[in-house]
């Protein structure tokens, strides 16, 4: 990997860091499919994983000659980061600390509010914070390994059957399907990788950051694949996809995967008669969470939205905002229109919400693999930039919607400059202007002004003036798209 690549990834991280800062608090990428419904994109392969090979624990990976080394490979065979993968993870990956997060005072306060026992003993918490420690019967040693947090096997798959084979010389040449039959997850496939992240960062059955948890203090989940991916200290080299278009692809695949996961979560919530309903975390946080001063920009906003009346629950759009654009839908919100309508009822019908979410999920799931397989070029990236920034996309966007547009533009921007080689572009060029607009957009979208001591976890100001400022930046980006 070139140095410049590292630089632009850290730039990307800078762009995203403040915006998604609230997420970083409980930053743990994890997956294991113990309780999960099979991801629809690869049913057969996932069933193989569900056949439950056992966990060996991250400690099995730590040998200095395996993944616990102190320097990356000097030779160009294979992934040069492989010798230090574990070392990087334990040293700088937030996932290594996800279990100890449960031991903090903040976690203790949360479980106290929820009337639960110690957080590190709660299945609901461990499901994401220490998925490998959840079921000791699934470990080779019959001991759980909670201290690993979100360790190696949480993403790569339980290693009982692939631990030995993967040390063999022929491993690299094996097919992904064969590896998966041993329980090794093919994370080079960006669809599978996104699913692995979204399992926790969007949620899945058994991994549910619902309104109870958020009310008790858990940060709201705001997942956007390319932004979080950029923040992760990477212990691998991406090879299968062109590195130039990686961000763009992670973004589009991530949009579809987020929607899939989110819809699956909605199905599960609707189907469970013991779960709260309506489940408020399905809705736009800032529709309700604000001061009650009057007049306020929120009253004004609700009036501007079509079909929305004051005080109505507004179905959250974080995971769906740009889905129509990703899917190339021309009729706007076509796929989700009915579901949105149902969820906008004061008391949505559970059965109807579940079945609408299910059919929508099937449609989106089918897109994931095609999006992951689709090669991207500069033309498509510029075209996506143009479409995300088009003024008529939505007239009065919610904060969530505008933030998703920003993240999409940032991902496209990085892939665009990477593809066109404009990293060191001079002031005044289109890429440079776009970068300035993105910096300004990030400032406009921040919850609290830089340097402000108070921690506002909601947009303090999202009034007509602010929306106009945001719109102007989108317009600048739109006008600057160098359409071939």
């Amino acid at each position, binding site marked *: 990997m070139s140095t410049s690549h590292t630089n632009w990834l850290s730039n990307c991280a800078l762009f995203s860091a403040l915006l998604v800062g609230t997420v970083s608090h409980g930053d743990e990428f994890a997956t294991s499919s113990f309780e999960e419904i099979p991801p629809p994109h690869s049913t057969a392969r996932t069933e193989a994983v569900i056949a439950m090979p056992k966990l060996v624990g991250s400690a099995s990976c730590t040998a200095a000659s395996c993944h616990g080394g102190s320097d990356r490979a000097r030779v160009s065979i294979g992934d040069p980061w492989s010798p230090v993968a574990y070392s990087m993870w334990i040293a700088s990956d937030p996932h290594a600390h996800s279990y100890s997060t449960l031991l903090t005072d903040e976690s203790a306060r949360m479980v106290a509010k929820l009337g639960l026992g110690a957080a590190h003993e709660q299945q609901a918490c461990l499901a994401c914070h220490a998925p490998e420690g959840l079921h000791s019967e699934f470990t080779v040693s019959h001991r759980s390994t909670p201290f690993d947090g979100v360790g190696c096997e949480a993403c790569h798959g339980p290693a009982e059957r692939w631990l030995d084979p993967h040390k063999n010389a022929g491993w690299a040449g094996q097919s992904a399907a064969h590896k998966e039959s041993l329980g090794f997850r093919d994370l080079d496939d960006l669809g599978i990788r996104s699913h692995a992240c979204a399992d926790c960062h969007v949620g899945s059955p058994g991994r549910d950051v619902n309104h109870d948890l958020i009310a008790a203090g858990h940060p709201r989940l705001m997942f956007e694949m390319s932004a979080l991916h950029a923040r992760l200290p990477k212990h691998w080299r991406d090879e299968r996809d062109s590195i130039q278009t990686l961000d763009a692809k992670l973004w589009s695949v991530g949009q579809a995967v987020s929607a899939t996961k989110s819809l699956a979560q909605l199905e599960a919530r609707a189907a469970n008669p013991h779960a709260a309903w309506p489940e408020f975390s399905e809705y736009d946080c800032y529709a309700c969470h604000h001061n*009650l001063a*009057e*007049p306020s920009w929120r*009253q*004004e906003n*609700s*009036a501007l939205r079509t079909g929305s*009346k*004051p*005080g*109505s629950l507004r179905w959250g759009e974080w995971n769906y905002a740009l889905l129509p654009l990703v899917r190339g839908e021309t009729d706007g919100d076509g796929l989700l229109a009915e579901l949105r309508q149902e969820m906008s009822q*004061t*008391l949505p019908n559970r059965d109807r919400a579940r079945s609408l979410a299910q059919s929508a999920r099937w449609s989106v799931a089918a897109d994931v693999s095609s999006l992951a397989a689709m090669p991207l070029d500069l033309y498509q990236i510029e075209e996506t930039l143009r479409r995300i920034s088009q003024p008529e996309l939505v007239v009065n966007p919610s904060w969530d919607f505008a933030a998703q547009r920003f993240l999409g533009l940032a991902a496209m921007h990085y892939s665009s400059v990477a593809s066109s080689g404009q990293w060191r572009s001079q002031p005044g060029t289109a890429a440079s202007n776009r970068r300035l607009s993105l910096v300004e957009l990030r400032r406009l979208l921040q919850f609290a002004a830089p340097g402000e001591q108070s921690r506002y976890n909601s947009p303090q100001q999202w009034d007509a003036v602010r929306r106009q400022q945001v719109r102007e930046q989108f317009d600048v980006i739109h006008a600057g798209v160098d359409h071939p």
Partner: protein
Amino acid sequence: MSRDILQPITKITQYGLLLAIACLVVVPLTLWAQEGGNQAEFVCPTLHEKQDATPLAMGRRLVGTLGCERCHLLGQGELTEFSRSLLDDPWVLNNEYATWRNSDRHAQAYATLLGKRSKRMGSLLGVADVSRDARCLACHATVPVEWMTDDKMMANPATVGAILDGPGSALVTNGISCEACHGAAGNGTGPNETPKGWNGPHKPEGLITEAFKSTWRFNSIADKQATNGFYDVRSPASRTRMCVSCHVGDPERGRLVTHEMYAAGHPPLPAFEVETFMRDMPPHWRVLGTSEAPVDSRPDTLHQKPANVTREFLERTNDSYFAKLRTDKPALFNAITDNFHTSFDRTRSLAVGAIVTWAQSSRVTAALASEESHPLIPSAGRWPELAVFE
């Protein structure tokens, strides 16, 4: 609710409170137990009997406020022998109308609908004119909501317009005026103008005589309400029931602040407690009894009935509560009468009021939770109505 109860406790002498609660619980229990031997009657007899009687729903015409000025706004014209006699009568204050008109915010209830915030609310809610909408006027004007609806359908601007553009417009523009609380004063629309309203009987013909005192002043408030539609604002339960109809809500009368209205900018309805709210009103009435020191710093001796008037009332009134006390518990009655303390009445009102307020709040929740849709309840069938949550 607990906050409602506790708030005024700080304002009322602690000992008086304890004494009064003791009286409140012991006396009525004894009285009702003796009367019917059925304690269930104590649960909410007044509520049960009167829950459907509200000032505006007793089958009589509204007369408006013009006639009230003659006696309740003295000093405007030349004093007659009659008005001079009123000045000497410690029963009335003679400035009730002026207090309401000049200082009572109820008089501004309709004007509020013409303000900036109301216009803004209207545009957010998609209501063309909030000052002509039944959902608003139900609480902001002295007109029964039935008058404003057409065939039981919601807000009909034309019907409201007919009132506003007709001779009855003052009933709307005066906001919450006399009859909103005291009851429609005119006669009914039955044969020979029956039932008779209270406008006539409550006025003495000529000077205030013993006969007038017997037939009207000390007649039981229950009888005045049943016969003449003079709403009982004296009994704590009845009085609170009247206030909470707007201040908590009364879906069956189209009085309801929905979550939608709050979201559009309606100020939150503050937790209602009848004694606190009455203290916040500029009083146009005199309370029974005296207190050695005015509660908080407000000099309210003017608004207390003088000792001799209090005693005369207690000894002659046919109000069931005091009448029963008088005949059944003479010793207790005399003990109370000899030194009637305002906190006695106020604490009774506080405790009864808390129960009535709670009951009304429950009725609102029950009506909103009902599956059936109701023309006067905009939220019916749309549960959960978020307005009833904290």
